[in-house]
Structures are given as C-alpha cells and as structure tokens.
C-alpha cells in the first residue's frame, strides 16, 4: 500500500518514471511497486497526469527542427540530418 506522496517521492528520485506513467500507468505503478488503494490518492494521480499531459502539449508546441548534421557511427544506424530542439534554440544558436 502506498500514497500519492510516496509516488511523488519516487518521481523525484526517478523522474524517468513520469514517461512510463503517461505511457502505461498500471504497468509503471506495478514496476515502481506502488499500489494506490485510497480513492483520493488515485484522483490526485489522475489530476497530476492530466496536468502533465497539458504541459507536454504546450512544450510540443515549442519544438522545432534544427537541420544540422546528425553524427553517425558504424553499427549505430543511419543517416539523417535533423534534430529536435526547442524553438528558442533555433532562434538563438549561441545558447
């Protein structure tokens, strides 16, 4: 048994868990050995994930393509010359 606070602490220690939570919450919670049984905690998690999704959509709107050389090495696959970056990076290459 765990609470939403336990989940928050786990996320602080392992931020990569957020991606897992948004992709597949049930599997992510199981992997993190967190079982939320309290309805209130489940609602808090739902609210948190909804907010996270909104934030992600906003961030996605700030993403641009930086057309630069994609460095490559044998055994690592090929072969394209673009990378994702935040738009202010594209505007300000000195950063």
């Amino acid at each position, binding site marked *: 048994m765990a609470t939403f606070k336990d989940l928050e602490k786990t996320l602080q220690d392992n*931020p*990569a868990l*957020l*991606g*897992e939570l*948004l*992709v*597949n919450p049930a599997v992510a919670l199981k992997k993190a050995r967190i079982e939320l049984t309290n309805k209130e905690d489940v609602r808090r998690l739902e609210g948190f994930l909804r907010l*996270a*999704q909104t*934030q*992600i*959509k906003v*961030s*996605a*709107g700030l*993403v*641009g*393509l*930086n057309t630069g*050389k*994609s*460095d*490559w*090495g*044998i*055994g*690592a*696959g*090929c*072969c*394209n*010359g*673009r*990378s*994702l*970056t*935040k738009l202010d*990076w594209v505007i300000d290459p*000195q950063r």
Partner: protein
Amino acid sequence: MPLFKISIMKDVTIYATNKCNIRCIHCGVGLDQDQYRYDLSTEQLKKVMYELASGGTKTITILGGEATIYRKDLAALLDFALENGLKIIINTNLLSYEAIEDLLDKPSLQAFVVSLDGASSDIHDRIRGEGTFEKTLRNIKKITENKRYKTGDILLQIAFVMNGINCQQTSKMLFLTSELKVRQLNIKNVRFVGRANLFNKLLEITSEDLLHAYTSLIINWLYFQCDIELQILITPAFAEFLNKAFGFCLPTSNYAACGGTSVFSYVDLLGNHLPCPAMSYEEKPNTGIATKDPKLNLLKNSISKTFNSNIFHDFELKRENRKYINQLIPCKYCKFNKQCQPCAANIINGEEYEEEIELCYAIYHHGDSYVKNIRENIWNNECQ
C-alpha cells in the same frame, strides 16, 4: 549520366582506424579491433582530406575504432584541417583525457561525439567493459570545464545506442546528459552487424520495449523541457502515433531514414569514397564492392571523379526508385509511404530490401495497446 545533387558533399565521415582499446558487445565494425587491419598513413589521410576540401566538404567526422588512442597524428590532422577550411568532429569512447587534451585548443576541432550506452555503470559497463562508465563521465566533466567548451567553440554530443540491455534507461539518458551539461543527445538502435551479431541474443530488443522506450523518452523530454537537442527518429507514422495517443504534434525529423548522399558520404579504411558505409570494406570485406571500381579511391582520384563513378549514381537511382518500399511490411500499407525512405543499404548490395524502420514496425504491432485502431489509421492500405 545525369549528375545528382551530390556534387557538393558538405559532410563526410572517415573511418580512420579499426583498432580499439575496448570490445563493446554491440560494435558493428568487425571482430578484429585488437589488431590493425589497415590504416591510411598521415600523408595519405591528408591527401584524402585535401581532396574532400577541394570538393566543398566543410565537416569531417573521424570514426574508429578509437582514433584518439590509435591515431597519434590527430593534432597534425587538425592543423591540416584548419589550413584547408575544414572542421573536425571526433567519435570517441573518451576513456583517455590525456589522448585528447592537446586537441582541445585546436581551432578546427568542432565537437566530440562521446559514446555512452547507459545511465549507470552496471548497464554501460555491461556493454562497454568494466570501469568505462566512470572514466568516460570523468572525462566529459573535464571537457565541460574547458574554456572553449564554455564559449561554445567545442561541442559535445552523447551517442546512445539503444538495445535490449539498456533500453530501460533511455529516458534516464536525458537527465544524465543535462546533468553533464552536454547539449546534444543522439539516440539510435543497435544494428546486428560485426560483433553485435555475435551477441544478438543479449542485445535484442523487443518491438514492444522499443516503442515504450521511444515514447517515454519523448514524453519525458517534453515534460521536463530538457535543455538538450534530441537527435532521434521521428517518422511520419511515429508522429501520428504520438498525436493520436497523447494529443501533440511533433515535426517529423526523419521522413527519409536513408538520407542518401544529401546527408553525408563516407571514406573507408582504404581511402575509398562511398555513398554509404554499408557498401564499405568494413561491412563487406569479402565482396570487394569498394575495390571493384578504382575510380572510388581518393588517393588516386579527385573527388569529382569519385562522385561520377557508377556506384554513386547507382546508389541514388536505387534509393530514389520507390518501388522497393513496397516490398516492406508495414511500409507498403502506410499512408505516409510516399514521403518516407527506409534504409537502402541492402538493395545497394544486391540483397532483398529488408530494413524496415523498427519504430514503425513496433507501432504497427503494438500501437493499438496505446490507442485504439491506430494500426488501421496509419496502415490504411492493408485491406485494399
């Protein structure tokens, strides 16, 4: 014979040595990194660089093996590059800071691409060897303290090759890259050639795990607004999948997995100039593809002569001949297949066209567990 738009090759990759100080299990360069196979001499490499510069090349990436250890002439080559208006990027495992210390002040040095295959030593060392994680991290930190790095005159990029051992740490690479004050992270999938083929059971990643890893990576990158550039595959199908599953749009960063010679060309260990590394001596030592056409060798020919060889023209023709995409599943059914171009290496080598994009394949088989009917939505030609 028509000249394609490959007449000016701004970026060229040179395979400068096969010899390496470690034995990564996912290495695709062969099985004999403990001995020199063949290296161009300093003068020969300068000749190659001179030819490339004359043809309009601006950036050269040095590959190995481990060039920082086994090419003692890197400082001289960087000086030569400066005289010829070239910038140099060096791929390295960065196990030795002493080996690169003298290179840091060279104005022609543009970047190091540093291989890091895990966010912790237990994972990284399992792939690259005991103690390598700590050494590489220590040396990355030293470079980030260098004044030329702080002013942006030298760049660092971390190259992560995703496989079955490290895929669970893909998202963690974002945080490690940020923590190290590195601005670029390059993510690619393992290819089962060379040594990687021997260890394929360990390195195999299920398509379900692959999709999960890429999706979580994008989600984390966006949510935490990680201040790093991501060099990653975003095919039209993956962009559509993300849109339908999570409600956001990303620009497609790889509608052509095979960028062909519009992205870069390649010089192998013998000095042969080739459109694709898959045609090289390193990957196909027994077929002699590169040695069949003497016009390819930059030690004996000008760069324009190599561009006008049959191999370059044949490569671009085959790459642009879109009928091959219809041999692939799921590409043949994909609603985006007119704008996509998977790897053409096998076709060039006279084999079946089989290198479908793994990420798309993963969405095709597992995407419906994220969002209903995504398979029908993207691969809508399947029933026709």
